[in-house]
């Protein structure tokens, strides 16, 4: 389903911050406090309901198969066990899947940061024939559904003999349209005078790009990095087709194959696997939540 990466309108990398809401009106104490309490109650209920599946997942991962199958269902594990986790670490090679996921995500992020900034720079700050056309093509592809390129992509990768290799997992995602859009949007806002001054001083374009422009691009790079990492980490359909042996599986691929294979009813194992898949990204999210939320506001809003 949709990830926060689809964007359609020009964005300035302006942050959505903790701006105060509508100012509380002075006076009328009684009328002010009651609706607020109600708002809090509703929000707390909402957040509990939203997070309940995660709590359920975590608690379930410590239960034994017997307890998971018992009805009526139980909340707290009666006989907490680490068996579900130890199985992942001993016989199921989760370290390999983790390494693969991380490798693909890191390479994809680095590729996008580099290639998209380079194109973003020339689209924002240089004049050349074909510029408008290039930008138009990039923008149009933002709307292309994944299934359109899926079949020919697979045919091509198999003709190149890349099926079940690392390059097959990251090459198709190294240079995406979203990054170009983000970087160009931000770089357009950098004053021309800075760049002109550097040109007059005799700096080459490469030098201007690396020493003048890139150091100013922290915010969009952070946004792009986060969005790309998230998309890659959770990416599922392509690696499912492109990775065909266990040593190339990423975490979601491994989990989905175990959940439909012979372990399909080993609920404890699957819940523990789910916890292991989402824990790194949730920790990252909580640490960087401000930037995550900025990135959504930046890509989604004018």
């Amino acid at each position: 389903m949709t990830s926060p990466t689809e964007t359609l309108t020009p964005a300035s990398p302006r942050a959505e911050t903790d701006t105060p809401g509508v100012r509380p009106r002075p006076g009328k104490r009684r009328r002010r406090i009651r609706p607020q309490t109600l708002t809090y109650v509703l929000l707390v209920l909402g957040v509990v309901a939203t997070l309940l599946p995660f709590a359920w997942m975590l608690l379930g991962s410590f239960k034994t198969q017997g307890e998971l199958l018992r009805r009526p269902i139980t909340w707290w594990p009666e006989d907490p066990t680490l068996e579900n986790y130890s199985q992942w670490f001993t016989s199921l090679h989760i370290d390999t899947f983790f390494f693969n996921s991380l490798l693909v995500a890191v390479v994809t992020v680095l590729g996008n940061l580099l290639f998209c900034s380079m194109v973003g720079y020339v689209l924002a700050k240089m004049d050349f024939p074909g510029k408008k056309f290039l930008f138009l093509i990039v923008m149009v592809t933002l709307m292309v559904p994944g299934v359109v390129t899926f079949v020919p992509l697979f045919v091509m990768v198999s003709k190149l003999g890349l099926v079940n290799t690392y390059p097959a997992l990251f090459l198709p995602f190294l240079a995406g349209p979203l990054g170009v859009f983000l970087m160009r949007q931000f770089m357009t806002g950098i004053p021309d005078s800075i760049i002109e001054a550097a040109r007059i001083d005799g700096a080459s374009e490469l030098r201007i790009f690396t020493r003048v422009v890139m150091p100013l691009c922290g915010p969009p790079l952070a946004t792009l990095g986060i969005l790309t990492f998230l998309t890659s980490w959770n990416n599922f359909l392509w690696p499912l087709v492109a990775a065909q042996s266990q040593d190339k599986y990423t975490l979601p691929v491994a989990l989905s194959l175990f959940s439909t294979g012979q372990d399909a009813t080993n609920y404890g194992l699957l819940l523990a696997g789910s916890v292991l898949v989402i824990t790194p990204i949730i920790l990252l999210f909580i640490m960087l939540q401000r930037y995550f939320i900025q990135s959504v506001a930046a890509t989604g809003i004018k």
Partner: protein
Amino acid sequence: MTATTSRPRVAGAGRPGGQRTGSSYRRRRQALIAWAFALPFVALFGVFMLVPLISSFAMSFTDFTSRDVQNPLSVGFVGLEQYSRLFANPQFLRSMLNTGYFVVVGIPLTMAVALGLAVALNSGIKRFRTVFRVGFYTPVVTSIVAIAVVWRFILQPDGLMNTFLGAVGIQGPDWLNSTTWAMPAMILMAVWRNMGTLMIIFLAGLQNVSAEMLEAAEVDGANAWQRFTRITLPTLRPTLLLGAVLLSVGYLQFFEEPFVMTKGGPLDSTLSISFFTFNQFGFGQYGLASAASYVLFVAIALLSLFQFRALRSKD
């Protein structure tokens, strides 16, 4: 499927033939440098995006199947035959219907929930704003595969969901095995998974609502509901439309939820257009799969265009 682009080569090193040609020389040099900067992107993007995009279009007019991969010359041109086969295929028509159901119910529902959350978070509460925001956004960042494992478990006939429903006296259905209830379950999951993104977008939009105007309206005796419908909603209109565009591009491609939860079943009741396409790919019917994917592409493009027009018209 080899050539990507024939871009001007970066011959850079050659010294200028003479400084006389001044500005035109500089312009040409700048163009070369610019394309050199763009080259890595253009090459990757060309090979892995444009070439597949065009081949898919071409493939949809042929009888290409998985057997032809080794010998592409044996492929025959069949004109619009794949498209007419597609629209005569009851399974494809069913998938269009399902996708329509998902979009028509899912989008308003997701937007209403997200708007409710954004307004509540923006209503002047001070404490725990970050906790709420992070909480509601968490489903967005998590892997669909992991989510599917736990939701399949929750939606079992005697699982968590029905235990809760039972507590308030409702006999819950066997969600994922019911042709009636499987799709509502998918929609429920999609709302849960996408409300966070829209909530953040709406929250940013709400910052444009003028506090002075709201105050003036209150002084004039407008109640909370009137203030919301007459001031907040109209100001938010562009943001709401943007949210609708983002959601419809995503929801029309509806795929992962049924893929991991129901395999499109029971009896094709959760089979989406993307899923149908993926299945045809699996059967080796590459021509038909390409045609189906282009139908989806056109639908997405038309809907986005329509929504952007609506967005522009009153600005």
